[in-house]
């Protein structure tokens, strides 16, 4: 059977383009990272209210991505939310013990993420440690309620 | 061995929907001879070939090729048997995505492991036999009707079959192509010792090459014999068909009510 080189080339390019497109969808659109962070370490943080935080949400420090939320569960000792953070291994032993974690919102209606702010304690956090100083998500209804009750008191 | 017929058709019954096409057809097709199956249009001659090739299954009766009941074979065994058969279709049925050379090479490529130079030689031999060696690079769309049939013939004989089935090989051909095809059918039979079954209603051409003739009508074998014996057959139906008379026992008119009453009845019916 006669074989046409241009046709074979066309099909090859077509399939290659499809695979590259899938890679594009993975990296650029879903934000997967090729360099899987080989070494990460985890921190725990308890929040009174996480609002709309979801697993896989970003964890930032000074606006820079440093990790992601790997799990959220209810802590039945305190009945608050226990959030597990997976952080870049380079930060292990660098964050001071009094680092604070806050749940922030990107824009008014954007997605929620965890923001870390450094403290001043010379002692540092290691793998599996717990952040004690946390700030819950802002819940719009609670804010309004507070505002209204303040008005009534005045 | 050579005395037993290659194809035996035994009391074949076949119907399509409510219409009975065959009601007990039996025939013997001897080896190395050209057997013609003739009959008016619409009597199911092509259907008979399809039954012999086991593309259709009969309601009752048997078809044996070389002693094997073709309708009882497994799919695999049937395909193996078909390698020993060639069939020439009315339309030629060339593969439209392949050129002439590849069409003839097709059976060789799928059924043999021959090296490329040998396939080339075989294909050129077959094309030479039908006189179209020069047309090997044409595509089926560029061929005339007669050439298409000749290429199809070359393809049908590519694997040197023992049996070749011709479905209306002469129909719709100009006199020259018709003559060429008649010659080819005859020559292949003589040179290769092929057993041939020719289904046709071209009386003159078919009778000129056939060794034995079956005439079928109304789902049954109406007459059989050598061309010479059929020529003097006295049965009026056979005689009408063989001599091509327009009216006779097979009426010219489709069954209808009396002509005068039909004309004079200016009623509602169209």
């Amino acid at each position, binding site marked *: *059977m006669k*074989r046409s080189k241009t*046709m*074979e080339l*066309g*099909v090859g390019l*077509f*399939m290659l*383009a*499809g695979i590259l*497109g*899938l890679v*594009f*969808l*993975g990296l*650029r*659109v*879903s*934000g*997967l990272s090729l360099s899987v962070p080989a070494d990460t370490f985890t921190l725990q943080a308890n929040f009174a209210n996480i609002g709309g935080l979801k697993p*896989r*949400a*970003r964890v930032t420090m000074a606006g820079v991505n440093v990790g992601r939320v790997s799990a959220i569960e209810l802590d039945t000792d305190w009945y608050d939310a226990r959030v597990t953070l997976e952080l870049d291994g380079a930060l292990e032993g660098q964050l001071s013990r009094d680092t604070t974690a806050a749940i922030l919102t*990107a*824009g*008014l*209606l*954007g*997605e929620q*993420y965890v923001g870390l702010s450094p403290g001043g304690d010379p002692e540092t956090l290691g793998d599996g440690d717990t952040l004690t100083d946390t700030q819950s998500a802002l819940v719009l209804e609670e804010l309004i309620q507070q505002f209204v009750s303040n008005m009534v008191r005045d | 061995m050579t005395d037993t017929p290659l194809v035996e058709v035994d009391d074949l019954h076949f119907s399509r929907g409510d219409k009975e096409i065959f009601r007990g057809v039996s025939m013997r097709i001897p080896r190395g001879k050209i057997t013609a199956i003739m009959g008016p249009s619409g009597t199911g001659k092509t259907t008979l070939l*399809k039954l012999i*090739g086991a*593309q259709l299954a009969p309601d009752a009766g048997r078809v044996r090729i070389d002693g094997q009941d073709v309708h009882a074979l497994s799919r695999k065994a049937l*395909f*193996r048997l*078909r*390698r020993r*058969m*060639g*069939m020439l*279709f*009315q*339309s030629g*049925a*060339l*593969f*439209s995505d392949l050129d002439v050379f590849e069409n003839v090479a*097709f*059976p060789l*490529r*799928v*059924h043999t492991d021959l090296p490329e130079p040998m396939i080339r030689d075989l294909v050129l031999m077959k094309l030479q036999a039908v006189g179209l060696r020069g047309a090997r690079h044409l595509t089926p769309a560029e061929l005339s009707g007669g050439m298409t049939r000749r290429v*199809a013939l070359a*393809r049908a004989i590519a694997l040197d079959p023992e049996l070749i089935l011709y479905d209306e090989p002469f129909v719709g051909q100009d006199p020259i192509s018709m003559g060429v095809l008649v010659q080819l059918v005859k020559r292949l039979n003589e040179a290769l010792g092929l057993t041939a079954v020719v289904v046709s209603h071209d009386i003159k051409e078919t009778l000129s090459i056939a060794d034995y003739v079956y005439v079928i009508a109304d789902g049954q074998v109406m007459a059989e014999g050598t061309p010479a014996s059929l020529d003097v057959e006295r049965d009026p139906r056979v005689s009408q068909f063989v001599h091509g008379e327009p009216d006779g026992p097979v009426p010219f008119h489709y069954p209808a009510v009396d002509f005068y009453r039909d004309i004079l009845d200016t009623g509602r019916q169209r």
Partner: protein
Amino acid sequence: MIPRVIALGRHGCDLLEALGRSGLFLAQSALGWPSREGLYLWLRQMHFVGVLSLAIVLVSGLFIGMVLALQGYTILIDFGAEQALGQMVALSLLRELAPVVAALLFAGRAGSALTAEIGLMKATEQLTSMEMIGVDPLRRVVAPRLWAGFVSLPLLTVGFSVVGIYGGFLVGVEWLGLFEGSYWSNMQASVDFIADVGNGMLKSLVFALVVTWIAVFQGYDLIPTSEGISRATTRTVVYSSLAVLGLDFVLTAVMFGGLS
């Protein structure tokens, strides 16, 4: 009344019979792929089915992405949430529009061509003569086409998504002046590779199977006349479109509707 019930019953039986026949047909063809020369036959069909559908799919994808961005922008700006445009464009495309629209275009472009081609081969006795040569047309003719369609449509869907997201970028960022970083970062924050890209691909695989199956079966099963071919071609487009849209609802309900 009774004759209607009988007619209904007959229709039901016919439908079941056709389903059974086409199921057997699918099984026989799909298993017939690894034959001699099979790979090359498949490659040829990839060209006819896939490469030749690329242009129409990509152009449609670009326009749909652009329209999504334009429409989405006018809605989102009312909520001051125009930075979520990237998210909206990407999710609509990946989950819904790319698999469905690509499948509909594929049914019109490649499916109808497959039906007509196989139908023509049947009408000109090519399939019968292949059988007489001792070659199974299901393996030789149908299987490569089935597999080519099955592989092509998901690839075309990926192309559709990529081009659509780029089209959204063109309109949102280059034309409407959205900040480029927020287009991509919002998208990355909300799109999950498995849940969104993966499920979209799964949908596309299902559609690919159904559309190609309908197309080759209609071609193989038609009445071999010119009228039969034209009817079967129409049926391919109608049945595939309905099947794609109906299945899309079912799949969406299972994948994203919280049912499981």
